[in-house]
């Protein structure tokens, strides 16, 4: 009844090419942003902002990056954690080497550094694909984390290997990073970064770049024959994806945990983000957010579950049960809907269009 495009005529090419051609989608997006910017900071407690919303946003960005690479360009990667670490350490080195540099610029530059590293580790994708490539990207994962752990230069020769992120401000004196920044400030800053980058991603995938990625994904030889250069398309996908992952890693280190350490970006992080992408839906911007929300909320829900239903279980038992439930849920989700939450969302929209008179 409410979600219906009947009567919305496109009278110009601009209207035809709009990102969100259906009016209700636009309203929904604006409402969502309003809620995210105004309602959430007002209602949510500091705990909610800093332990649920922040990781959700940071993970969404990483999942978005991986989704561009795996979902759109079809290059399976398990090196996400390594690229996030790269972004985090690039941001740390830049921020400490140039203390006066604007933090936004630091993040963008660290994203670019990561993009360069991503291109380097994307080179094997020109030769190999599928699971061979996935295992090859593990090389990036282990190598990068080792490098950041091994060489003191990256941590400015800090003795413990764990370093706190330097506090930085935007607009003169509004601190957004470091431990002294307010949760609201961190949240709003992260939200803005994620929103802008998500919009950019949405636009990239519907431009000729995104279309060339999808052609490569569907069949790279056929794509090559119709004139798409695999070199630029694949390495471009690696670069853009790594850019997103790098910024996400920088946000993780500077804003979410306020400490820069390579161990936070180990192989389990890569898998976690791959889970998000697949649970959320491969080849869907919306899916990255849904998947991140699912994976961030699930462990919190699971660990609070026993107290909610009034059963007391030992701590190590809880963690084992968490593992089991997590694994079982993933299998369950894949069986029920292999195309992820985004597909469920799409189905719901289709249903809504016909509701309440399906005939």
């Amino acid at each position, binding site marked *: 009844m409410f979600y219906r495009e009947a009567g919305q005529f496109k009278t110009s090419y601009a209207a035809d090419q709009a990102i969100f051609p259906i009016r209700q989608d636009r309203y929904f997006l604006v409402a969502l942003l309003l809620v995210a910017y105004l309602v959430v900071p007002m209602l949510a407690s500091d705990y909610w902002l800093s332990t649920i919303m922040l990781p959700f946003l940071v993970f969404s960005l990483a999942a978005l990056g991986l989704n561009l690479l795996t979902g759109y360009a079809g290059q399976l990667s398990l090196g996400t954690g390594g690229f996030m670490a790269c972004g985090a350490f690039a941001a740390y080195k830049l921020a400490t080497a140039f203390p006066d540099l604007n933090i936004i610029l630091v993040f963008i530059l660290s994203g670019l550094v990561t993009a360069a590293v991503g291109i380097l580790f994307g080179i*094997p994708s020109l030769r190999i694909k599928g699971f061979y490539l996935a295992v090859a990207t593990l090389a990036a994962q282990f190598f990068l984390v080792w490098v950041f752990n091994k060489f003191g230069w990256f941590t400015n020769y800090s003795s413990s290997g764990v370093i706190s992120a330097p506090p930085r401000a935007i607009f003169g004196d509004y601190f957004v990073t470091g431990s002294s920044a307010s949760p609201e400030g961190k949240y709003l800053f992260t939200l803005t970064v994620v929103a802008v980058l998500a919009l950019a991603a949405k636009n990239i995938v519907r431009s000729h770049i995104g279309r060339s990625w999808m052609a490569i994904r569907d*069949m790279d030889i056929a794509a090559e024959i119709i004139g798409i250069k695999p070199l630029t398309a694949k390495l471009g996908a690696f670069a853009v994806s790594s850019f997103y992952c790098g910024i996400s890693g920088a946000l993780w280190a500077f804003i979410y945990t306020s400490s820069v350490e390579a161990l936070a970006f180990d192989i389990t992080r890569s898998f976690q983000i791959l889970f998000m992408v*697949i649970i959320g839906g491969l080849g869907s911007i919306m899916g990255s957010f849904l998947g991140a929300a699912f994976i961030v909320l699930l462990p919190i829900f699971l660990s609070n579950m026993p107290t909610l239903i009034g059963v007391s279980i030992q701590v190590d038992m809880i963690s084992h049960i968490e593992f*089991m439930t*997590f694994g079982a849920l993933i299998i369950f989700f894949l069986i029920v809907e292999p195309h992820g939450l985004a597909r469920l969302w799409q189905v719901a929209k289709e249903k809504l269009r016909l509701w309440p008179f399906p005939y």
Partner: protein
Amino acid sequence: MEFLNAVFVAPFVEIFNYPVFFAEVVVGGLLSGIMYSLVALGFVLIFKASGVFNFAQGAMVLFAALTLVGLIEHGMPPWMAIVATVVVMIVLALTVERVVLRPLVNQEAIILFMATIGLSYFLDGFGQMLWGSDVKTLDLGIPSAPMEYGGIQVNQFDLIAALVAGALVAVLAVFFQKTRVGRALRAVADDHQAALSVGIPLKTIWAIVWSVAGLVGLVAGIMWGTKLGVQFTLALVALKALPVLILGGFTSIPGAIIGGLIIGMGEKVAEVFWGPAIGGGIEDWFAYMLALAFLLFRPQGLFGDKIIERV
């Protein structure tokens, strides 16, 4: 200059001066490579027969070892515990086929891959919930005294591991080449649909393959468990088997063995002779880089099926 010397000159000088030490490192590397092969074998079996990249192989190794140790700790004699574990692994294979694989038939490879990651989480949690998460020692009376052969020190345990791996490969080869089931397995590996159309029951075959992979996992679990103690890190051994896998090719059993030998040797030699030059601790990633270098020249691995693509 000093760095270049440490990378390009010093290691070779050292190798030339101490050939016995070098031989010892090489033999040690080869033998530890065999251990990687044991895990990689399970991957290859399942990938060959069902096209599933089974990430849960590491979890299966852990689960088998945990079950074995748990049963022995509960007072079962070792031989009986092994038999019981074999039964458990077969039941596990049947369950996996029924609960995970059958509903996901015809899905894309990446979906199945994800499902096996989910399975590995489940098994990690399940095994540790049943048997506890503290480190256990597994002692089946395998000797582990160092011995000397022609001036080279070799650990007896490593030799036995190599023998076990060799025997395992021989048994698998006979099983695949000479038996009726083995022939069916090879047919399924070649082409699912063609195999189905000549009347090979795919479901049974998958259950068999997963059972065999479970048994290989048990063998790997016994060897690794004896070496490292039975604990959660056993599941991470699977990560070490991955470069072996891409080096040897996903579909080749001899590839898994030879890949393991190359990786094991390369890793040890690099760690001992080149490690000091770049700061040590390189075994985390060296195997991957080595495999990557091979892949650039042979994208399907050393012994993998030639990749033929049609548009």
